[in-house]
């Protein structure tokens, strides 16, 4: 009998704890749904063609985030042009030749750089570019985003290349291909889709960054296509709208957020659909 009671108690504890873990999972999913639903609810009503194409105007006169969308686009593209080649190159090095001390060191610093707060990157670029140039610029913003991208892309590229079977390299080498041809014509194409997914996720990540743009790209009230001038971005615009005193601004913040979050979610879902078979 005593055994039975002990056994029942153990089963009871087990049942309670396992339900608690399920409750934890339910809780965060509820939070996600609440956040997304609230963004959709507040955002949809404020989106219009005018909002998407016009520049910010004094409170009460309407206006929009057209210049912020363009600015974010320009800076994301420029950051990708700088960050992707360097990141992918570093990743290829780490995967193919990175087993010695140099590779280990680079890998270690890449990992720690990923964890460094993005606002620190903003300060670094401020001292590096903005102080000598004496003004904020879209280029400085792009460079900050590129620096955030490089270690992330390097590490995902490395992982993807390591998935390519050794036998493929050996086969090519046995046919007399020089090593660089093996990497360039055999390994890279085999890992291309994986590298592309990693790049997409990195782009999604930098398109949501605010802190590194605050004092590098600053903000602008106008359409600006010159990267040596201060440039507006969706995220900084959301920050300014959200911390402003007027209800109209808050509404614009939600609408801009809907566009930003929508974009990021779409990228994540597409990536997920492409990688589904692999995992």
């Amino acid at each position, binding site marked *: 009998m005593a055994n039975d009671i002990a056994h029942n108690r153990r089963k009871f*504890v*087990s049942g309670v704890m396992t339900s608690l*873990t*399920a409750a*934890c*999972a339910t*809780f*965060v*999913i509820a939070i*996600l749904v609440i*956040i997304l639903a609230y*963004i959709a609810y507040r955002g949809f009503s404020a989106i219009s063609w005018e909002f998407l194409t016009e520049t910010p105007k004094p409170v009460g006169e309407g206006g929009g985030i057209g210049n912020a969308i363009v600015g974010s686009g320009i800076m994301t593209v420029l950051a990708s042009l700088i960050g992707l080649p360097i990141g*992918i*190159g*570093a990743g*290829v*090095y*780490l995967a*193919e*030749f*990175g087993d010695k001390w140099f590779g280990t*060191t*680079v890998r270690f*610093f890449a*990992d*720690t750089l*990923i*964890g*460094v*707060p*993005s*606002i*620190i990157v903003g*300060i670094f670029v*401020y*001292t*590096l570019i903005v102080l000598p140039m004496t003004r904020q610029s879209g280029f400085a913003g792009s460079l900050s985003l590129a620096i955030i991208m*490089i270690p992330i892309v390097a590490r995902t590229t490395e992982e993807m290349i390591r998935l390519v079977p050794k036998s493929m*390299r050996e086969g090519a080498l046995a046919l007399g291909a*020089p*090593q*660089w041809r093996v*990497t*360039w014509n055999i390994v890279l194409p085999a890992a291309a889709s994986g590298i592309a997914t990693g790049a997409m996720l990195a782009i*999604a*990540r930098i398109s*949501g960054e*605010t*802190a590194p743009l*605050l004092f590098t790209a600053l903000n602008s009230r106008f359409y600006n296509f010159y990267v040596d001038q201060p440039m507006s971005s969706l*995220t900084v615009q959301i*920050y300014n709208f*959200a*911390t402003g005193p007027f209800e109209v601004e808050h509404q614009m*913040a*939600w609408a801009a957020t809907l566009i930003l*979050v929508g974009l*990021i*979610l779409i990228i*994540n879902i597409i990536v997920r659909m492409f990688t589904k078979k692999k995992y």
Partner: protein
Amino acid sequence: MSKTGTIGDSVFRTILIIFAATILVIVAAMIAMMVQNSIPTIREFGFGFLTGSRWLPASDIYGALPFIYGTIVSSLIALILAVPLSLGIAIFLVEQAPARIARPIAFMVELLAAIPSVVYGLWGIFVLAPFIRVYLGPFLQNYFGFIPLFQGRLTGIGMLTGGIIMALMVTPIVTAVVRDVLEVVPTAQREAALALGATKWETTVIVLGNAASGIAGAVVLGLGRALGETMAVTMVIGNSPQISASLFEPAYTIASVLAANFAEATDKLYMSALIEMGLVLFLVTFIVNALAKLLVLRVAKRQTGH
């Protein structure tokens, strides 16, 4: 791969080495630029900069203690809330849920990490802060009001709100690492425990014990993220450089004082003070992340080493 003797190999490898070295150059340049630009306050205040509790830019008095206090306390709140939650989710996903259910849930948790910080901030201002002011705050004051932590005026904006927002943002990261760590624990251990008559939960406890240092690594990684969390915290913590026992009072973190003031800091000493705080934050997060990496690696090594 070893070289095959053509010139192409040397050229290709040199180019790749330059790309890889860029990462080291970035880290070195970061440290150099930040040290160089914080020399004015290092000269002026020395170590007292970190222990001074008064922050009066108008009269050139800079003490970083309120910001260090705010950073540590808000991060602790975040960890206290996020760690049990993340453990629960990770255990559910790895140990209990069938793959059919676990996969979409894992994806949704990842989506939580994909939402930008500024969006959490916006949500924090307009949803979480009112919730705390109207529901959670009065509840805590009613039942735990005798503890100084929960006394003081309720505005909804303050240390607790910052900590809760941080907890939401740290949870997916900690969950992901704990999941990876649990997945490395060999299935044989679970089978052995179950065969000896252990219940599901008792088996999980054994698995957790084997993954302990990896879980510690996940927690430290979460700490690193919380310490450096910027936008969302800046928007909800109240931005006031004070050291108060109450969690409802506004506070300030290192990252948020940088975000809120850096653009306006034209005075040389003021800018230097901010950059020095950035340097402190950089070094701390760097060390914390390195530590996390070592802890997680230890589990991976031990499990695959056998």
